[in-house]
């Protein structure tokens, strides 16, 4: 995912702001691609994984 996506993303549960924690990026592209990391809701603390460049914002109970 690109960081520009953060402009419009929010926590699916309470619609509050997400904080981005980056573990791995790919700088080879024009815009930096976030490959691995986590999105954390500033309000409820729920964590959403970013894996293989894709943020998974399924509510935790639907993830598995």
């Amino acid at each position: 995912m690109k960081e520009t996506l953060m402009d419009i993303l929010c926590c699916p549960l309470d619609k509050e702001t997400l904080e981005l924690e980056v573990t791995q990026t790919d700088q080879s592209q024009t815009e930096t691609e976030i490959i691995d990391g986590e999105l954390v809701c500033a309000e409820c603390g729920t964590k959403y994984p970013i894996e293989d460049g894709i943020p998974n914002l399924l509510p935790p109970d639907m993830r598995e």
Partner: protein
Amino acid sequence: MGVREEFDAWAADGRDKGMEARHWHTAKHALARMPVESGDVVLDLGCGSGYAGRALRETGAVARAYGLDGSPEMVGNARSYTDDPAIGYVGGDFNALPFTDDSIDHVWSMEAFYYAADPHRTLSEIRRILRPGGTFYCAVNFYEENVHSHQWQEFIDVEMTRWSREEYRAAFRDAGFHVAEQDTIPDREIDIPSEREFPTEEWDTREAMVERYREYGTLLTVGVVP
């Protein structure tokens, strides 16, 4: 079984591409009608292979295109088909959209809306994320008047909502949309064999197949946020 298991399996055995090819016959006509401007952000709900966002970007119609899908395998496939930095895919569910209020110009959804666990809630989520004047282009082949679609539920392990044309309009209005258009878009491209090849594996009569594709086609309902 849920959306994830069902559609992860579809994505894993390549059915995302098969759907794209079939759905494109009618989807392209509906997409061509969207009143997009070049700065717009469009979201595809239940994006599958993600073709709608790629098409809108390839024609230069929009600034950014995002796709959301409940199946991580689908989203993974979709991402692998493009490296346009203005396209992004995310995992997510129709019942709890991870987008801020008024953040999207237009929402597109093809053959996906009726899988929503609570379609009324999904409509109000869509209305929430769209800016005033934003549109929801909702395209479905599975709907009440299309009698040939009724048996599809048997083959799919996710509960499907089968609304009529009128129920779509009413639900859109209940969720606070104005209804701007409702149409059935014929599929003129699917190959319909000649009379003597019927019955086929799928179709008893040629008339039924003609009715399904050329007449009932895809039901499009367009809602606009006041």
